[in-house]
Each structure stands twice: as structure tokens, then as C-alpha cells.
């Protein structure tokens, strides 16, 4: 393998083909990949900044009919642990987030058949009414498709209605690996095929929304399929330019059907750094790559900054999905900033569009340190939000529940 030729090509902004990328991903020394990824990152971000966002990852419901076999988070319809957050609970979470300097909710959840599009519209409107500046980075493409199927509206119509209600941007969740062979094996083909996922993003970009893109690797896919995923994202980015960032993480196998059935072990730290680095080289039209410290831990999360990442992602505050699959890393803003500065960068807060919002919030405000992420709900809290009676349920369990007097959210 002629690494010098690749070095020259990358230095001059040349593109990697699928075959090039595969060769490098499989055979280039890890340090070489890191150095090249670092070089590209420095070229794109010469100002030596590393950014992060203060937001809260709220999962409004864990009830889901999609049943992806890699997911430890969802509960079936009618399950006693199934929940839907009430509007008031979500408002409280927003208030707490604002106190920590937060600027948006990352709002995602299960495909709950008992939440019609009106519930989302009412929630978004209510949030915007109470917190006009607060941003809603909400509903990954499969959730949009779920709403489209439930409401019998086209995807562009669903997006229009959500934008009208207050949607600001769309998170890139649910991409897993954008190859249908893999999606079928992960039991997530029916929630969104690769084309459907990309199509939601295409429509969103055309309507002026910015979105992120993700990749969950380490399940049943091949190296070629990881790279195909990246190349499909690169193609769409060439077409629309609507992605703000790429985030990759390794499958967290604990407590998942897939992990048990296929005896899958989580991909290693070095595999993560190599995957991140090759993504920086392949995704030459993406400005921002996030470090996934939530899955890799703070230490390897920080080392991501030497392997192509320029962003530490979210301060998080709350996390439910990865925790359900066994990982429970936590870094508050102080810790994120310390890690960024220790790596030799200047830490800046940003919004979803990667506009710089300022210096670390805690340096100018009294902020309580946190060493554990919150959860959607306290254990044992099975309350049902009062407003749910206003929305028609589709499932038998949902209809039965709404026919009963509701135990209100405290």
C-alpha cells in the first residue's frame, strides 16, 4: 500500500473511493490514520477550537412497536415499564437544562402507536410558547416515517407540520448502518430502509432544516458496509449540504436480543478510533465529527480529538438508551471543558448549527457539578400524564388505559 500517495491525495483535498477507504481502514497503521484525520481536522478547523453543546437527551416514550433487536431501551405496548412523559415533566426538564446553560432538547423516543402527530405538535407548540428561544432537535428519520405512516401524511407533509409547530432540526438517529442487508438482520428495515432514512433527510434539508448523521457499527455489518454507509452520507451531503455533523458509536450489546443471539462483543477502543479517523477521511464534505464519550468513556472520548473529532458532542444531562445497554459514562460541562483544554484546544459552547455561543457556561455562572446522568423517570414512577386522554390511542392497551381515570403526573 502506497501510503505516501494517499498522504499527497489527502493533503490536496482529493477524494477517497470505496476501494481506497477499505484498504486504509483495514490495513493502514492506526497512527497513520490518526495523523491523516488530524491533519484534515486541522485544515477544516484551523482556529484550534473544540466545541460542545449543552442540551438534554430526552426520550419522551420508551414504548415502541419497531422492536429493533439491538435496542435495550424499548418496551412493548402495554408493558408495565412503558412510559410517556407528560408535557409538564418535559417543561421541568427544560427548566433544569436552562439552569445549566442548555439551549436545546434532543428529543427522541420509541414508535408509540398511541401518540398521534397532534401530540407532537401540541408538545412543540407548548414548548415554544413557554421557552421561545429554546431549540427542538427532535425526531429521527424513523420517527418521522412512523408519524407519516400513522397519520397517512407524506414525509414532507409531516416535516412541514412539525416545522410549523416548532421543530428546529432533526437528529441523525436510527441510521444504524444504511445498508438494507444489515437493516433486515437488525430488524430495523421495516422502520426505515436505507433509502427511506436518507429520503427523510433529503426532504428536511430541502426545507431548510439542518440535521446530523450517525452510524452505529459493530453488529453484523462488514467493513465494506460501514464504508458504504459513509459513502451514502457523503453523496447526500454533496447533494444538499444539510448535515452539520457525523457521529459514530459502537453497538452496546448488553441486555439486547442481538447481543445475546449473536454473542456480540462491543467493538474495542482502537476500532472506534480507527473508525472515527476513516470517517474523517471519507466524509470530506462534513465539517464536524463528534466524539462519542457516552459509549467510549471520557478517556477514549478525549483521545478522539487526536483522531479526527472536533466536537465533544453534548453535555447530555440525561441519557436512557445507551445506559439501558450497559454503558453509563458521565461528564458534566466542567469535565468536558477540562478534557478539551487538557488536549490543547480552546473549548467553546455551540448550538446545533455549530454557531459559537460563547465560553464555558460554568465559568460565569454558579453550576452544580454532576457525576451521574439523569434518567427519563425515577425508578418506579409509572404515572400517566393527564393530557394523554386528549389523544386517541390506537392500541388496545392504550385505549384501555385512556378509558380509565388517569393517575396524574406528580
Amino acid at each position, binding site marked *: 500500500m502506497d501510503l505516501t500517495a494517499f498522504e499527497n491525495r489527502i493533503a490536496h483535498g482529493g477524494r477517497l473511493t470505496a476501494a481506497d477507504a477499505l484498504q486504509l481502514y483495514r490495513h493502514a497503521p*492506526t497512527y497513520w490514520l490518526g495523523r491523516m484525520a*488530524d491533519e484534515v481536522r486541522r485544515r477544516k478547523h484551523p482556529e484550534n477550537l473544540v466545541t460542545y453543546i449543552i442540551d438534554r437527551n430526552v426520550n419522551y416514550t420508551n414504548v415502541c412497536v419497531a422492536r429493533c433487536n439491538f435496542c435495550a431501551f424499548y418496551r412493548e405496548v402495554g408493558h408495565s415499564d412503558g412510559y410517556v412523559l407528560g408535557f409538564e415533566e418535559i417543561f421541568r426538564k427544560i427548566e433544569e437544562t436552562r439552569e445549566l446553560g442548555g439551549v436545546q432538547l434532543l428529543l427522541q423516543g420509541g414508535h408509540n402507536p398511541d401518540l398521534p402527530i397532534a401530540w407532537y405538535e401540541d408538545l412543540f407548540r407548548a414548548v415554544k410558547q413557554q421557552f421561545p428561544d429554546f431549540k427542538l432537535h427532535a425526531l429521527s428519520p424513523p420517527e418521522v416515517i412512523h408519524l407519516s405512516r400513522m397519520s397517512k401524511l407524506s414525509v414532507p407533509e409531516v416535516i412541514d407540520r412539525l416545522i410549523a409547530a416548532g421543530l428546529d432540526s432533526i437528529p441523525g438517529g436510527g441510521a444504524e448502518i444504511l445498508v438494507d442487508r444489515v437493516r433486515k438482520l437488525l430488524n430495523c428495515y421495516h422502520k426505515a430502509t436505507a433509502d427511506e432514512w436518507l429520503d427523510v433527510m433529503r426532504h428536511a434539508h430541502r426545507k431548510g432544516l439542518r440535521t446530523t448523521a450517525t452510524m452505529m457499527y459493530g453488529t453484523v455489518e462488514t467493513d465494506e458496509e460501514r464504508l458504504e454507509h459513509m459513502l451514502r452520507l457523503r453523496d447526500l451531503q454533496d447533494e444538499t449540504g444539510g448535515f452539520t455533523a457525523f457521529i459514530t458509536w459502537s453497538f452496546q450489546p448488553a441486555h439486547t436480543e442481538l447481543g445475546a443471539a449473536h454473542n456480540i*462483543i462491543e467493538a474495542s*477502543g482502537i476500532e472506534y478510533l480507527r473508525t472515527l479517523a476513516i470517517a474523517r477521511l471519507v466524509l470530506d464534505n462534513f465539517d464536524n465529527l463528534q466524539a462519542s464519550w457516552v459509549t467510549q468513556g471520557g*478517556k*477514549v*472520548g478525549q*483521545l478522539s480529538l*487526536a483522531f479526527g473529532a472536533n466536537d465533544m458532542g453534548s453535555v447530555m444531562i440525561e441519557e436512557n438508551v445507551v445506559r439501558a445497554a450497559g454503558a453509563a459514562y458521565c461528564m458534566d460541562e466542567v469535565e468536558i471543558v477540562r478534557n478539551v483544554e487538557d488536549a490543547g484546544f480552546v473549548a467553546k459552547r455551540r448550538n446545533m448549527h455549530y454557531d459559537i455561543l460563547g465560553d464555558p457556561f460554568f465559568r460565569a455562572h454558579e453550576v452544580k457539578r454532576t457525576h451521574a446522568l439523569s434518567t427519563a423517570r425515577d425508578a418506579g414512577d409509572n404515572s400517566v400524564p393527564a393530557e394523554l386522554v386528549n389523544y386517541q390511542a390506537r392500541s388496545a392497551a392504550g385505549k384501555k388505559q385512556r378509558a380509565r381515570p388517569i393517575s396524574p403526573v406528580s
Partner: protein
Amino acid sequence: MNINLAIAERARAGEALTVAEIDELGSSDILSLGMLADEVRRARVGESVTFTRVLEITGASGASGASGASGASGAEMRISKLPASLEDTEGLIAEGRMLAGPQLLTGFSLADIADRHWGKLVDILTRLKSAGLDAIVEAPVDRLHDAEDALKACEAADLPVRCLSLQSPINIDGRSSWLIHLRDLVMKFPKIDTVNPLSREQPVQMPTTGYEDVRAVALARLVLPSVKTIQVDWAQYGPKLAQVALTFGANDLDRVSTVDDESLGKRRTSVEDVKRNIAAAGFTPVERAAS
């Protein structure tokens, strides 16, 4: 590469670096430093990574995880916690000796023993050896009032110390002199061939960062040419950081659990996990003999 090439050359040749040189090396960019440490490590100790399976012994009931002791055959038996009295310690060692049979029985931090002031250190160590202890697990050099004296006592008692270690994170200003102190000690005690440069304590408010950890590993490899083994604690630092540390100059993983839950499949056992991580980092796993 952002690294001083002249200093790098001296490190490659195993020459004694000065404080200023170590400081400069430590401020190189992390990838350049890692590449150099990896190169030096491959030249000095090759491409293998050793690991030690350890069965921890905690007290009266014997081994912790005794239920999983099926995987303990060939593992090192280790007593981590020092009892309150010398007599209890001797009792625990005797119990451990019975369990260990011909396998290696190690225990304790030399600093913990010294801190108890049970008597003259050499006498205490002699009693521990007589009770059946094969070696002291570690000497946390920063915690020992006089590390050289304490190591001499071990020599006099014929009780080897497995590794020189660090109790608390060291700040950047003290890093180079600490490494030179370590270098002096290993020159004086050449039988000690293992250094664990990552601190035993991780303050909750401010744990060490990934950069700090891998930099410490790389510098230890570059500054201590006579030390064969740069060790990382697998159980404490976890598979991700420990694996990355292997590419920054470490060549040994300590404290791999003997408790293998094979009900989850062979690939999920600790030993398989550690071997897979070593191989995925590009090295050859070799289990250390514990007898």
C-alpha cells in the same frame, strides 16, 4: 511530526534523558509521542503483550469470586487488602497459601505495610515471607517515605516487589522528576523490571484524562530503557483505555479476572476478551506464568 528529533533519537538509543528533555518530549503532540513510544517498545520487547490472571483473595472466606475459581488454575493469587494486625495478615497469607498451592501468592502495597509501623520493615517482611507470601504486589513510590530504604528491606527479606507504581495522579510539573526518580530506583534495584505508570487513585472530581494516561505510559517507555514491562491495570482502567495504552508503549496487562462466565459464550470470558483486545491492537497475547 511535532517532536524534537534529537531527543527522540536519544530516547531510541536508550540514553538517560534530562528533566528538560523529558518535559519537551512530554509536550510533543500526542500522536507523535505515541508513535515514538510504540516504535521503541517494539524494538525493545517485541510485539507480544503479556497479561496476568489474578484471583483476588479478600478474607476469611478465601477467594473473592471463589465460585468462578474454575478459571483460577494457573492464575496468580493476590491478597489486596492489608488486615489491621500483623497476626491477621500472617493468618490470611497462610490461608492464601493453602488456596494457592504451588501457584504464585502475592499481596499488598509496600506503602500500606510501611504505614502500619508494626516494627522494623525488614522484620515484618521476613515474617510475611515466612507465612507463605511469594511477593509484594507493588511499591507505590510516591507514597513511600523512603522508597529506596523500603525496597532494600524487601531485598533483605528476600521478598520481591512485582512492580513500581504510582498512588496519586502526578501533575505535569512533577512528572519528569518523578520519572527520573523511578529511573534511579530501577538502576539500583535491577530485579524490578515492571513499572505501572498510571495512578491507583482517580479523584472523582478530577480523574486523569485519556491524554494524561497515554502520555504517562509513553513517557515511562521512553524514559526507562532498562524497564522491560510497562504495565496497565486492566481491571482498573478498563478494556478501552488499556487497549489504547498498548499502542503507546505498554506491554503488560495486570489483574485480568479469573471469573469467567462461560454461560455467555466463550467470547465473553475475561481471558478471551483480553486476548481479543490485545490482538485487535496488533500484538500477540501471552499469559504470564504464575508459578
